């Protein structure tokens, strides 16, 4: 099992805009480099790319949830 952390503090988003589907749904497989969400820091948006590959992603953060740097965003098997 591995964790995907937020490198930055800010607000976590699971999709690129409110009317778009999430980058990853719970249970999806993840490859290295896949975008799993965005972090908004001071009005600028940063893509969060997975540094691990795995199956069955489970998000630990909700859409639009405030996060600290280092927070666990998701876990994968």
């Amino acid at each position, binding site marked *: 099992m591995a964790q995907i952390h937020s490198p930055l*503090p*800010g*607000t976590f988003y699971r999709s690129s805009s409110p009317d778009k589907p999430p980058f990853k749904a719970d249970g999806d497989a993840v490859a290295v480099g896949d975008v799993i969400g965005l972090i*908004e*820091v*001071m*009005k*600028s948006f940063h893509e969060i790319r997975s540094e691990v590959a795995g199956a069955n992603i489970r998000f630990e953060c909700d859409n639009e949830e*405030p996060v600290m740097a280092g927070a666990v965003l998701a876990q994968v098997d």
Partner: protein
Amino acid sequence: MLRKLLVANRGEIAVRVIRAAQDLGIATVAVYSDADRDALHVQIADEAVHIGPPAAKKSYLNQAVLLKAAAETGCDAVHPGYGFLAENAEFADACAAAGLVFVGPSGDAIRTMGDKVAARSAAHAAGVPVVPGSMGRVADIEAARHILIDTGFPVMIKAAAGGGGRGIRIANDLAEFEAAFPQAAAEALAAFGDGGLYMEKVITKARHIEVQVLGDGTDAVHCFERECSLQRRRQKVWEEAPSRALSDRVRDELCASAVRLTRAVGYSGAGTIEYLYDDEADRFYFIEMNTRIQVEHPVTEMITGIDLVAEMLRIAGGEALRLKQSDITPRGHAIEVRLNAEDPSRDFAPFPGTVSSLRVPGGPGVRFESMLYAGYTVPPFYDSLLAKLVVHAETREAAITRLVRALGETRIEGLRTTKPLFLALAEDEAVRANAVHTRWLEGWLDTHSARLVPDLEP
């Protein structure tokens, strides 16, 4: 006079408004999200009300919770600051409906000046030069060809329903125009469900010059102009007053046109009328009116000696304008720079964090508008403005020297800031000669940004 003011904002502008109100003997109520419990505006206000989670739409943009806070603390007025709800006509109306004075113009004035076509028409009707182009939608390509006589090339074709830079095409000659116009109409229809188009002359090298106005609904005065040509991604970074680019004759015409428009729309409060100034043609063109206090208002205060936020509060309290035009005289030169929590050597990446220690600049002609204190943690949820360093001196040259001195005194430890940008700009020959335009800074950054490395104190 107002009795008790809810300040519906955060950061340095909340601090600025609270100070102005307290100086007038008006009680103040701050509001704060979960992320701002320790913020300076909360500490210095007479009272503070918690309004929700960090996300702005659940706190600083939540009209219902702000109105409830105002009612429960017995406020008779609301100051929106800038950003957030400052130019939200529905919020201005909702305040009025709740029996609260909105410190700013009426909802209708915000609506008129916030609508690009209505504002352009109002400016045109008041005899204010507008950027040559269509007055509203272009009927068809026949009509478009007639408009080209005024605009020349390059010309911008914009989707009426577009916004934020979307749906814009630029044609450099007639052949490009003939091809682009029908394509733009088809694209606009597909993208926005509305094929309506506007046309506007493209002014490639323009300065951004704006006029500060004050109105009481009947009368209006101007407080001269500011030049804000140094911009990155349409965000101003360095602002000054007056503009050294204008002749006295053009300055008089520009400021008089701003007063005409302010009067024509029955404007109440502080506002800013923004223009493009084309050096080559020696002409200015109206772009838009901002119906609020602006970030860079202190440079005007420094050259005129007027407290603009206090004047806003007096006008909102029902006083007529206290100042006649002949009372307002500019003296010397002022420059403001925006110290943001951004790393200029890394494409201005945001840098929230904790201020481990702080040394604030001082001395004659120096003003530091900020919400920082040692130990304060800058939250990542809002904009990156940490402080505005404002200097005033007899001449522009002396103001730049003073700016460098004050930047040297300024130490915001624990964060990366845009301070190195301003030290480098202050040394630059083009900046010192004021030979700049609104696209100048982005070109300069392409070759200079790598060496703008901030000191990062442990």
